[in-house]
């Protein structure tokens, strides 16, 4: 229990941003930015794997084209 508390405090120390120091960012604003971070993160992941995704799509599309020709 004590260990968990120490760990939690240590995490707060590590995670808390220095810019948060003296004004309250407000939970609404934090959640909004969290949401934005999530969306941007998702877009970035899609972009990262875009080549493989587009390859897969192209392959599917290509196959269908071939099957269309048949």
């Amino acid at each position, binding site marked *: 229990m004590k260990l968990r508390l120490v760990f939690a405090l240590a995490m707060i120390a590590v995670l808390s941003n220095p*810019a948060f120091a003296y004004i309250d960012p*407000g939970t609404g604003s934090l959640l*909004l930015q969290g949401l934005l971070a999530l969306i941007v993160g998702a877009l970035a992941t899609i972009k990262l794997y875009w080549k493989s995704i587009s390859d897969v799509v192209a392959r599917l599309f290509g196959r269908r084209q071939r099957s269309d020709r048949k």
Partner: protein
Amino acid sequence: MTLRATEGEEGSFRDPRGRVYSHDGRIFRAIAPKALGDYRWLMDSRLYSRLVGKRWLTAAVEIETPSTQTGSLVIEHERIPFVSYPYEWTFSQLKAAAVHQLDVHLEALDHGVTLSDASAYNVQFIDANPIFIDVLSFVRYQEGMFWAAHRQFCEHYLHPLLFTAKFGIPFNNWLRSNMEGLTGQDLVRLLPLHRKLSFRTFLNVTLPCWLQQFSFNNDAAVQRASSRYLSKAALVFMLTSLRDWILAMNPKSGTTTWGRYYETGHNYSGVEAEVKHRIVSEFIACRAPRTVWDMGCNTGIFSETALAAGARRVIGFDFDQMALEGAYRRAKEKKLAFLPLFQDAANPSPDHGWNGAERKSLFSRNNADALIALAFEHHLAIGRNIPLDQLVAWLVSLAPVGLVEFIPRGDSNLDRLLRHREDIFENYTEANFRSAIEDVAQVDRVDVVSTSGRKLYWYSRRA
């Protein structure tokens, strides 16, 4: 140098990393040891010199190396000619300050620095130009950090601007009552449904407000959200999209009586206006003031004359928003040393905020060497029932010398003020006006400026 606690500026307590002091008319800032790292980072990056070079940030010089006792560093700031507050600005001024805040932030991000707050009180105006004044707002940026001051930016800038843009009601009364600005909750309650749901308003105002209500007692969700990584690109996107949005905002249109006072019909023939301009010029040339206060400045036409006659700087006050917009445009387009501000002379800015001292009254910020008050006194003496002797004493208390216009009965502008009401102003006579001046000052000269009998009184205050 010892900075005494009594010289501490009451408005600088919020950020414990530093404190502002005024001493002998100079402005100092003590920077606490815990803020020195960020301060050095700012100074050593090219950001500081870049911002100061562009006149986006006030300059500072180091006065003392960190003292061994407190570990604080003392710097001296350049002095702002006249400190004004957001509740004294027009829509265009708050808009310019908002854009400036965002521009400074974007420039800072290019140099690995971010802003820890977004208080509109950190922006001041030197004439028509906004300038950032708080070096301690700059902190090192680590990619992934959230914009901690997003809410403050919205409350101090975005919400008041939206409020005026959507409802056509000036934000000044609201901002004067609430130093924290206009909250999202209040604004969302006011907005009709279609406005709440319009795309940008929804994203920036309604959604955070709803999220805040949803997250009440849901600390886990907030914890989860705030541990996410906000890329720099996403942060820049937030800042630039707010900037674009604000730049496109305008106050909901409305016409007021005085907006075109000098462009359309007024009480002077062309010749009479010329006489008035000539006398203002003579007055300024004769008194050679550095700073002039123009009470009831309207669109700044006589402020401009005062500047042309040699005044170094004019601070103008009026309570007509549209006239002030015209004055601000005049100052900006003609690059005049002129700052027009909103002020209701019958209810001027008080000392208020924390401990009644955080923001200073108009009177305690007085820096006028001379005053002009043209077509002004009747609006207060007749329009607002201010006793003539009190009004004159107040005007004379603002500046050691001045030029005050007296509007006599029979003048069509004065008669218009009495049109729908009983004339209870038997004391409103030129003789009483003159004797009220003579109670506190000396009458140096009187010029008649219209056929209706308007007169310009030159006074100099008794020492």
